[in-house]
């Protein structure tokens, strides 16, 4: 395990060297012509990242983490971003469930759940959204009733990313009636192999089968799997969510920069595509400025968190900014690669496939983790404090 090096940049340099040696072959997202990495290969890579000190950086050592600060986390994430590395399979585990468990879990729960997230033994999914409760999450209806055998859960979740490949679900359910809204909500860590759970994959616009419908039919959940007391779990979760919204996938701006670097480099491999690129140079410069300003959001946030400041609603600012900046890049990139000549060489075909995938995937970015409209509502109401009535 790695310990904190003293001089700034050293942690990043360590991460860079590790990635150079270990991010190879079909793990690279810029080598689309290779056989795609399997789920097991991706999980093995992610577990290795953790062992090398590139994940679980800020988690306490007692729970399998590296016990360092957000500063090292940021340094490592800059390098992860600049590399054509795959997105984490277990980001829900690492960036949502893990922090919530650290905030509200019992000591037993922390010891039980946290290390397995980092070793990739347990991949987590997030069971919050329902067919009737998307933006209006407080309208959720999945019920949890306390019985002598433990909790019994009934209901349906939807858009649950990676549910069919997960071992645990961070489930949000209701103990009271729907009219209670935010009251009487309870959080569970549900094993996905519990009888009564039925998972059906939904095909997304990319053609993948990643997000799912999850049905709960008299699913018995042990008391020990409840996270926080009823109600308390949810309020703590929303606090964690606001931090996570702002700080998850911290590598993003550097990843966007890396995607742009890839596009430019590929276009320079052929005089014809370079001519196309020239026509978009100014648009790409605008995008490059936005990517750099996004780093300002991220780095300022890290400083604020390190100084112990509350994040609260201001997490909506980076979410809104990155999602729209990335969509803008993706739209331009898709337009450029669509004009590549039919006899384009391998570097161009790789870039084309990657940019097309990014284009489609980016459409979800203004929908999940709170839609654009919801972020704007939060900013207007909770940051600008705009009145609705005199």
């Amino acid at each position: 395990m790695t310990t904190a090096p003293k001089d700034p940049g050293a942690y990043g340099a360590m991460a860079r060297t590790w990635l150079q040696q270990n991010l190879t072959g079909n793990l690279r997202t810029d080598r689309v012509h290779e056989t795609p990495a399997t789920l097991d290969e991706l999980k093995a890579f992610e577990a290795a990242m953790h062992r090398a000190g590139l994940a679980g950086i800020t988690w306490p050592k007692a729970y399998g983490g590296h016990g360092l600060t957000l500063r090292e986390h940021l340094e490592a994430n800059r390098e992860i971003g600049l590399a054509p590395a795959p997105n984490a399979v277990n980001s829900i585990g690492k960036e949502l469930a893990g922090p919530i468990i650290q905030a509200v879990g019992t000591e037993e729960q922390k010891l039980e759940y946290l290390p397995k997230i980092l070793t990739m033994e347990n991949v987590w999914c997030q069971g919050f959204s329902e067919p009737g409760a998307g933006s209006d999450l407080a309208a959720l209806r999945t019920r949890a009733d306390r019985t002598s055998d433990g909790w019994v859960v009934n209901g349906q979740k939807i858009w649950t990313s990676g549910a069919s490949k997960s071992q645990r679900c961070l489930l949000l359910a209701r103990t009271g009636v729907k009219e209670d809204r935010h009251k009487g909500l309870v959080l569970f860590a549900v094993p996905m192999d519990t009888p009564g759970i039925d998972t059906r994959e939904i095909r997304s616009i990319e053609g993948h089968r990643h997000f799912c419908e999850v049905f709960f039919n008299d699913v018995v959940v042990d008391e020990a799997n409840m996270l926080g007391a009823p109600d308390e779990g949810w309020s703590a979760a929303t606090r964690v969510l606001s931090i996570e919204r702002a700080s998850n996938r911290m590598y993003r701006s550097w990843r966007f920069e890396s995607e742009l670097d890839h596009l430019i480099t590929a276009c320079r491999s052929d005089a014809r595509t370079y001519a196309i690129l020239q026509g978009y140079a100014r648009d790409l410069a605008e995008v490059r400025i936005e990517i750099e300003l996004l780093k300002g959001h991220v780095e300022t946030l890290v400083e604020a968190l390190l100084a112990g400041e509350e994040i609260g609603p201001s997490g909506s600012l980076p979410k809104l900014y990155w999602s729209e900046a990335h969509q803008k890049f993706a739209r331009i990139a898709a337009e450029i690669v669509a004009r590549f000549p039919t006899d384009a060489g391998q570097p161009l075909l790789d870039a084309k496939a990657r940019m097309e995938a990014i284009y489609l995937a980016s459409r979800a970015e203004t929908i999940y983790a709170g839609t654009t409209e919801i972020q704007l509502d939060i900013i207007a109401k909770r940051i600008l404090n705009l009145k609705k009535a005199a």
Partner: protein
Amino acid sequence: MFDDLDPKDFEETAREVMEACAATDDLAARASTLAEAGLLGVIAPEAVGGLGLPARFAVPILEAAGAGLLAFPLIEAMLLSEALAHAHPEMASALVSGETIATIAWLGTEADGIVAGAPRGEGAEHLLVFRADGSAVLTETAGLSAQLSDQLDTDFASATLRLAGPLTGLELSPDAVATLKDNAQILRAAFIAGSTASCLKQACDLAQDRVQFGRLLSSYQALRHRLARDLLALETMRMGVTRALSNPGEAAPMARRAAWLGAARMGPACAESAIQVFGGMGFTWEVPLHRHLRQMRTLAIQGQAAASVSALAETLISGSSNQWYEEVPDVV
């Protein structure tokens, strides 16, 4: 260092000083008001009467100046007193103390025989003129004929000056000029952030006061979302400035450029947005939103933002230094 001081400490003073400056028409009076409060020399070395503070201390002062539509070459005073401090300390002292006023002709060079974009060029005693070789000369304005550079520029009243042959005066080396121009990016961005904050505040106040269809304007989601986007723009600018000043190592040149170009693009857009929120009132001379729009556009022009984006575009497509894509052949 400077642990006992916080840039925020300057906010209140700066706001009051800007109000006092707005109450007088006299440029020299503004200079002494600014100087007395220590605002002209905040980043100038102590040896020339400055406070010798890091650049982040200039940010709240510039924000207040932007919000208060300060009709004074403040950015120029800060830049010149810093640039001249070592080679020409007497002049730097005179600028810090407000005894003399200098400005910078941001557009054109000596060789053109005519230079432009000099804020308050008609009232300043000294004028920095750039030379084609990258150096610059600080000349006296006496005897030069001045006229307004741009109809759209009311408060800065930037001047176009016709030069009478080769200039003499204090010289700045090409290195000093490059540093001055680099620093100007951040000072302008902070100024624009202040101007933007004022536009947003005015728009929010109006929306929470005016009723249409029996409801406050601020109850309508279309306007709430517009204002939320403007706040995002403002905070993005501010964080860009903070990051550029936080010593981000090798990322520094790009961080500065992005802070400046981002502000130059987002600032005027927020003023336009505020005008829209005000409706017909927004189109009147009396409501100062157009002055903010003019002020921010003027800064964008003086910092040559549009050309700078083009230059960035050129550099960007000239190749990437990302080592992950090294193996891709480069044929152009």
